[in-house]
């Protein structure tokens, strides 16, 4: 059977029950991400109040890893300031690419993404939502 490291329970759970999926009509920041290798598409919607992200939603089609990662992202960045979101983004990217980073607590859903780094082809799937966020935050 396939390695349980990749398809952790929490990833499958986010995939089947994404937290904040669907367009956000009053978003003031949006960006579209695409993985040209596989055709996966993702739109990220943010609503900010001053420096703070007050709402985050995503829409799109993709594999379990890309969808679960997007779902976790929308949950994790709500309420963060833009700088905090940038720091989180760097931490997730470092985790996925195997670079030094402050590890996530075991009970933090994001820690489940660590298993993806053993599957080089799937790292791009997990990164899609985060690189889309990066595009928004650095606009």
């Amino acid at each position: 059977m396939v390695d349980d490291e990749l398809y952790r329970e929490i990833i499958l759970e986010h995939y089947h029950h994404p937290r904040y999926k669907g367009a956000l009509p009053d978003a003031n920041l949006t960006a579209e991400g695409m993985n040209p290798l596989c055709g996966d598409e993702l739109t990220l919607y943010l609503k900010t109040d001053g420096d703070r992200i007050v709402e985050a939603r995503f829409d799109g089609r993709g594999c379990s890893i890309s969808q679960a990662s997007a779902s976790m992202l929308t949950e994790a960045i709500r309420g963060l300031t833009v700088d905090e979101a940038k720091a989180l983004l760097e931490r997730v990217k470092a985790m996925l690419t195997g670079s030094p980073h402050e590890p996530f607590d075991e009970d933090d859903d994001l820690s489940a993404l660590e298993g993806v780094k053993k599957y080089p082809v799937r790292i791009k799937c997990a990164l899609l939502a985060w690189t889309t966020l990066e595009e928004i935050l650095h606009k």
Partner: protein
Amino acid sequence: MMTSLQTQLKYDVEAIRADFPILQRRVNGHPLVYLDNAATSQKPRQVIDALVRYYEFTNANVHRGLHTLAEEATEAYESARAKVARFIGAEPESVVFTRNATEAINLVAYAWGLANLKSGDRIVLTEMEHHSNIVPWQLIARLKGARLHYVPFTPEGEMDMEALDNALRQEPKLVAIVHVSNVLGTVNPVEEITRKAHAVGAKVLIDGAQAVPHKPVDVTRIGCDFYAFSGHKMLAPTGIGALYARRELLEEMPPFLGGGSMIRRVTHEFSTWADIPTKFEAGTPNIADAIGFGEAVDYLQHIGIEAIQQHEQQLTVEALRLLGAEEDIVVYGPRDPQRRCGLVSFNFKHVHPHDVAQVLDARGIAIRAGHHCCQIIMRRLDVTATARASFYLYNTIEEIHTLVEALDDVRKVFGKYGG
């Protein structure tokens, strides 16, 4: 389909498998089940040995030296061209070696297209095309102000011939069409399409990358003007492919790339060109892999391309039967196995194909998941990707069964959420 007992006895798939060293590999603890042949085929010992033999015994540049090695290398290179040409019913002078089918199509786009297309001219493509037969035409259309027209396919995955007839009424300059779809498996009626296109004065280019490896192809009988294909999908090394073009066209077309070999006389201002097909082979060509291409053709002819086609047909019938019976799976392309060639694309209704491929890989099964360089088809099917199992001469019925059984693993990982 008629399959005589005699043919079945003659086709010894185990003997064929023994010629392919890679098929001995185990992947993730399981014997490799290689079902990604539409992406690239595996190579038999005979082709691998031909490369080693060339580099250890013959290596020299072609069409240049007067020494023994140079003569032998030239003879081997040109004899490979003759084999490849004969395999598709062409004269050697009509076959240009390229890197792959993509480069062959780009050669036509730049050499023929730039010289012959003008503003307002129409190019007819189909929605079944691989990106390799779309993007070069987009680039040329932009340079020349030509217009692209796409012929759709039917819900069954077959060419919409009525729409094609309508497109031909606009008198296009070129019809560029895929012979066998790498996603739907559809075999297009290229002879009929060529006849109709010629009747309105259009030139016809056929992308045969998925056809030549799997079925008999005779470019003279088809009557097309250009035919492109790749070696690596038909047992040859990567980096070698071929363009067939009618002799008169090759003679009147300007060169694609300039450099050594392709010239007759070079002066300060201008140069004159070598005879065809050398005119289109600038610089030192991919000699070793061309020789490997010739060896691959020998191998296919030794087994018999009709026998291979018949064998793959049996695998396709079984795959369509088993996958078609699964309620949670959608199968794409024509239902009639006689109208398709060597591959089956499918999707679970509730599982992304990447996840399907990942779970199958854990069982040593290699399939492709993605858009297969056919984003227009994906949009028409309203998916972002499909899973695809593609077959070749060394695959077995048992491997089809292993694939279908392993799909239960997918259900185990993803099923419990009602997927």
